[in-house]
């Protein structure tokens, strides 16, 4: 397993036409024990999401952050495909 220690928050810009707000809310709920989130709305239906892994889990930053995005993507796909 790759160990990445990132002390600074990791920021990603996501598009709500891909990741609905519900998908992000579900992912944040699932990972609230491991991370602190800050979401800032942007233009064109986008949002900047900052993820700061809590000090106790900082050694697993990469895994936690990327698992968070996988979880959000899984929920996003379920929501998007249920609409279509």
């Amino acid at each position, binding site marked *: 397993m790759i160990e990445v220690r990132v002390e600074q928050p990791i920021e990603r810009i996501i598009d709500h036409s891909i990741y609905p707000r519900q998908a992000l809310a579900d992912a944040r709920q699932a990972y609230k024990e491991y991370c602190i989130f800050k979401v800032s709305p942007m233009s*064109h239906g*986008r949002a900047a999401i900052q993820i700061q892994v809590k000090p106790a889990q900082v050694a697993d930053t990469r895994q936690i952050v990327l698992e968070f995005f996988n979880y959000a993507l899984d929920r996003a796909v379920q929501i998007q495909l249920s609409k279509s």
Partner: protein
Amino acid sequence: MTSSLFSEAVKITTDPLGQYVSICIDTTVYGRVAVFKTVYWFTDQYYVLLQKAEPESNDLRVELRLKSEADSDILEQAGGEFLNRLLDQQVRQDVLIETANIRDYLVKKAFFEGTMHSDPDHLLSDESHISTADQSASDDPLKIGRETGAPS
């Protein structure tokens, strides 16, 4: 796909979270549903992030990362595998749309026949040949006990 087209679509890049393969998807070729279904399958083996290629563009960009040790050869293979699966999924979507009418027709027909069968008159079997109380097996009105092959 030629190698130049492949290298245009698939690029190996690095950021603070490690090495990843970035795949550009032209949404005029691949529909969003096909993309969503493909990325869903890849979250099992890879870390996947789906983004718009540009804020005002409809094109998409997929980032694939290995869950274990990063290796650029494996990442490039993963990019190729992703594009193959995406093409496969798009063909499935096209076939799904092309055959939607006949599929609906078959489902309607199956359910229509089901409603016919729920009528009790259609459910009753023909029991006219079952012997009644005043008949005996020894009467053999249908000559079932007759030896076959023997001269009559």
